[in-house]
């Protein structure tokens, strides 16, 4: 290891001397350089690892890997390494996948059932530092009866299990017998996806080259470079300098590209919500009247326009409007309804005091609202909620804290939340609103308890029948709309700036997490650029 590094440092030292000599005459125009047909995209968040077992691109669209299934432009499951969408047994406890022929890893070896088994068994192994294990707690075992068949055996019937099969498959040969937590594979992986990894310079960029033997067809471009630029302003400036074909930008920075020749701004709908968790353990937020009043007192339209710069939509529940399971009847007014909120509080006995703050039985309607201090978006939303609450006589004290200060207080103080995936309502509701998970870390931190919601959540995952599931989630959504354990504020839109010479861009509803995987460039292997 020492030799290449020292050579590189020497080369770099020479470079530094050249820089000092002021060889600015060697400057060449930006953009258009490098190999023809290589697309450059820029994002803020860099993955820690490129190994799906350790949480890289677990929901698919990871560019480097394929799952048994993947998702199309409408987030519907389509077969990938599996020949067809895997079948589920009548009792829901056995899932069988048959692999397609001719899928190869980047090293030329075929994808076999053993590779699938290896991948899922590694996730379940407690010695491996995978947080994905929590999402697969229904999986009892995975076996390969022959080279092209994989059988998953579940501990209990779990309706959305197929959604968990988008996890990228790794070649067993490349990892067997190694410590997967520390394997070199995590930096230089071998997958079966449309691109293979040429190099990864952490903190700088990931260089991917087209996989010419991709089972899904040769990618339409020669390769992709993903530039990692953590700072929003710096990324915007480099996009302006013409370095990127596509870049994710904060809405207000992206607005600067509106009407700029050569660029298009894409606002992509998401399941990425922001809301306020109201703990039952607090005497003020524990009162349903206060929660319902706050729910109608907040001005969601103003938050979308002011805080998000228009890049969002009002939220009324955890299931995003794009989901087939979204219940339309829970949608309320986007604006604030101060009169309705005041009516609810009056009826419950919360009377305005001399300082304008309401009180009941000598207790003031006041509580703290925590937000992670580094998150400016949640801070602005917390301040907006604070201002709206003041208009109806509730005093909120916003507190910006670090997560280690927030976590022990979640049972008593309100918290600005943000998460969401569009794939299945179970993922975003079961552990968050189920009384069985009350006060278990981030799962149901406010200890919301409702027998109706619990039953609906269980029905939603136990039954495979779509109509039964839809009915269960309708019941659940109506119940939490009535109980208001959280105030849902907005769904974000992720904004991207794309060069208008790029064709093939197909936005689809995005989850909270989007970096190399699952961003606007989920189908970049079909993108081309006119030169």
């Amino acid at each position, binding site marked *: 290891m020492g030799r290449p590094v020292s050579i590189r440092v020497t080369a770099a030292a020479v470079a530094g001397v050249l820089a000092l000599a002021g060889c600015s005459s060697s400057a060449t125009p930006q953009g258009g350089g490098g190999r023809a047909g290589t697309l450059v995209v820029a994002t803020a968040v860099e993955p820690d690892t490129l190994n799906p077992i350790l949480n890289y691109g677990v929901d698919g669209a990871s560019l480097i890997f394929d799952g048994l299934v993947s998702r199309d432009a409408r987030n519907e499951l389509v077969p990938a390494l599996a020949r067809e969408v895997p079948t589920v047994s009548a009792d829901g406890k056995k899932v069988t996948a048959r692999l397609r022929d001719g899928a190869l890893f980047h090293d030329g070896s075929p994808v076999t059932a053993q590779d699938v088994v290896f991948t899922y068994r590694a996730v379940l192994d407690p010695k491996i530092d995978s947080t994905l294990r929590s999402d697969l707690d229904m999986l009892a075992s995975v076996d390969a009866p022959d080279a092209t068949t994989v059988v998953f055996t579940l501990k209990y019937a779990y309706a959305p299990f197929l959604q968990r099969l988008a996890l990228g498959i790794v070649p067993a040969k490349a990892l067997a017998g190694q410590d997967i937590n520390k394997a070199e594979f995590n930096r230089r992986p071998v997958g079966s996806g449309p691109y293979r990894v040429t190099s990864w310079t952490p903190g700088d960029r990931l260089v991917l080259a087209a996989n010419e033997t991709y089972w899904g067809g040769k990618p339409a471009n020669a390769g992709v470079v993903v530039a990692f630029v953590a700072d929003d302003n*710096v990324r915007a400036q480099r996009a302006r300098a013409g370095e990127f074909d596509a870049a994710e930008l904060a809405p207000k920075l992206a607005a600067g590209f509106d009407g700029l020749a050569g660029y298009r701004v894409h606002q992509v709908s998401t399941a990425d919500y922001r809301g306020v968790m109201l703990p039952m353990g607090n005497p003020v937020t524990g009162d349903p009247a206060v929660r319902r009043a706050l729910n109608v007192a907040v001005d969601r339209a103003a938050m979308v326009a002011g805080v998000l710069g228009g890049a969002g939509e009002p939220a009324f529940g955890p299931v995003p409007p794009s989901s087939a399971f979204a219940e339309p009847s829970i949608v309320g007014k986007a604006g604030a309804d101060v009169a309705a909120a005041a009516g609810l509080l009056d009826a419950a006995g919360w009377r305005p005091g001399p300082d304008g703050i309401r009180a009941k039985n000598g207790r003031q309607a006041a509580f703290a609202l925590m937000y992670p201090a580094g998150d400016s978006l949640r801070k602005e939303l917390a301040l907006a909620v604070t201002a709206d609450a003041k208009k109806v006589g509730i005093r909120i004290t916003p507190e910006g804290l670090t997560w280690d200060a927030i976590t022990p207080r979640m049972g008593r103080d309100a918290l600005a939340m943000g998460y969401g995936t569009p794939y299945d309502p179970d993922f975003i509701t079961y552990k968050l609103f189920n009384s069985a998970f009350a006060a278990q870390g981030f799962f149901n931190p406010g200890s919301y308890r409702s027998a109706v919601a619990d039953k609906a959540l269980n029905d939603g995952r136990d039954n495979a029948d779509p109509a039964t599931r839809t009915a269960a989630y309708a019941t659940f959504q109506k119940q939490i709309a009535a109980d208001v354990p959280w105030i849902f504020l907005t769904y974000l839109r992720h904004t991207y700036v794309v060069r208008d010479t790029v064709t093939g861009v197909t936005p689809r509803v995005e989850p909270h997490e989007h970096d190399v995987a699952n961003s606007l460039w989920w189908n970049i292997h079909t993108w081309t650029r006119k030169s």
Partner: protein
Amino acid sequence: MTATTPDGDARPATPDAPASPPRARRRSRRLAGAGAVVRRRLLVAVPVLAATSLGMFALGAASPIDPAQQYAGAAAFTTSEENLAQIRANWGVDDPLPVQYARWVGNLLRGDLGWSTSRHEPVTSVLAARAGWTLLLVGAALALVLLASLLLGTLAAYRRGGWFDRALRAGAYAVQSMPVFWLGLAAIALFALTLGWLPAGGLTDVTATGTDPVDVARHLILPVGVLAVSQAPWFVLFIRDAVADSLRDDHVLAARARGLPGRTVLFGHALRTALLPFLTLVGTHLPELVGGALLVETVFSLPGLGAVTVQAALGADFPLLAATTLVTTVVVLAANLATDLAYAAADPRVRLDD
């Protein structure tokens, strides 16, 4: 400081003495104690480094941050307590502090700096991949600062109160009041966006296939320039004042009186006297330069140690933090030693005591 200035040792320079042999002898005598000083400093460095690393681990034990939760990131919302506990057990981060520290020191003695939980790779490979870029940035900027401040400061001192002096001082005060971050963004706006002369960031062109030295050099002009400009005011103002003072010293006045040319007097006599305290300033300013480099790396998206250090601190990644702290401590100790040795070499009155 072990360098002392015993008054009895101060001898007047003899201008008429034959040039080379005695001078060489004198210089070698001046550095006679260097070996002993280096040895003694190395002995002192061991407890300093031990105390620094132990301090890092004590902070880690006192920190309420859960490294497993940081590791999970957004997945923390869907990860069970049991799952996080398994990860912590794999890392051994719940072990008592003495156990963790003993394990770390044991590995260190075998040349293993440990595993970075925030970067998911060995600490040695994090340092190998990134420290070189930070050192290059700091080294190039330091060289530029030294050259520019010596030249500009001396020129300003020569015509003290003149337009150049006044402009330079005003500029220095203005730059001193600008945050590095802002300077960087302004430089990008001017040189990359408006003029289009230089790239706005990154180590190479985003589509480059390797790290070509010319490409890297072009990408480092702005970061090195910004870092140098942001650190220059201290040095420029210091040199200007020191040279202005020494221009009134007896030996400078004497040189002038002997009719030596102005340039010789300025650079050969006045600047040379002013250089001595300047060496100390460079030594003490090095940590600030490193701090500035970390910010510049962020602005210009350079893969140096800056971003990983912040990430390590936020993620309670103590193996990586301890390593970066040790590296910084070593650099500062080495800089102090080099300053003292340089002092002894440059000033005949200073003797390394042994």
